[in-house]
């Protein structure tokens, strides 16, 4: 069981750095939500910052890739994502087409390069 969950310290960090900072906004919405205008300017800024943080994380995974993804040449990683995005736009914003296309480029490219 201890192997399944890992160290108690890691679980504590999960609760303190993952669960609580995330859940607090849901509960805030439940408790204080009545008087907030959904289209207010503050929320436009919040959404822009949240989007940009997520965009940064996407860039981080591609730039400093974890584990097996690090075994793929830089150019191929960027190329696969660019191809996926191009297909997504061509297929009238179909996420499915973009994801499948990007994956095929990655696997085919890796196979081609050996």
């Amino acid at each position, binding site marked *: 069981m201890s192997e399944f969950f890992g160290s108690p310290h890691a679980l504590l960090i999960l609760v303190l750095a993952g669960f609580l900072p995330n859940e607090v906004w849901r509960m805030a919405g439940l408790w204080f939500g009545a008087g907030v205008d959904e289209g207010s300017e503050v929320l436009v800024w919040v959404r822009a910052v*949240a989007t940009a943080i997520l965009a940064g994380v996407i860039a981080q995974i591609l730039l400093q890739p974890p584990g097996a993804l690090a075994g793929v040449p830089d150019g191929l990683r960027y190329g696969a994502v660019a191809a996926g995005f191009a297909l997504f736009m061509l297929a009238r914003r179909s996420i499915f087409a973009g994801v499948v296309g990007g994956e095929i480029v990655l696997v085919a490219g890796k196979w081609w390069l050996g």
Partner: protein
Amino acid sequence: MSSVASTVLTLVLFATYLGIGALAHDSHFSLGWVLGSTLLVWAGPAQIILISTLGSGATAVQAAIAVTVSAIRLFPMVVSVLPLMKTPQTKRRHLVVATHFIAVTLWVECYRLLPKVPRERRIAFTHGLGCGLLTVCMVATTLGYGLAANLPPVFAAAILLLTPLAFLLSTARNCRQISDILALVLGIALFPLVSQLHTGVDILISGVTAGTIAYGVHWWRQRARA
């Protein structure tokens, strides 16, 4: 037709959590840990941010700040969807579990499905929908973790690539205003520059800067129009 739409959303969710499971494996977290994060955090972006910041050596405080900023968007979602579930007899504690389930997929599905459900049964319906989606995601997390551990490197890499691809495309699809598009593009463009500084809070600096510039452009355009 409605079942097809939900299949596509569930498929994207499945792919996302396959990626999260694989990412957790290759960032050296335990399977129990990542399943716990799916159950407790229940928000894809926050989980990716948590795993990749902790995995790249950030402190718990730095990770917590990045997670909480990404989670602020849950606030307006909760605020806008809860009135759909309330009846005059509903007490706040009846809504706690339903509130925990609210994340982008459930939020979209609530708008689509709740109007077809009698009002007094909507909380129970949301619990059922939330448990169903959670089960799908727990299976996907476990599968992604196992695949990353056992597949040949090229396919393990392909599963890891699901995360950036699925998030990039679903974020791009959700862009409504000029500020959203700019935030996405600037956020990707700024990170490589900021990461040269090795501050430990690169993600926060690039995110807040890019998001604020994007908001500034939105504000300036609105003023120019007025």
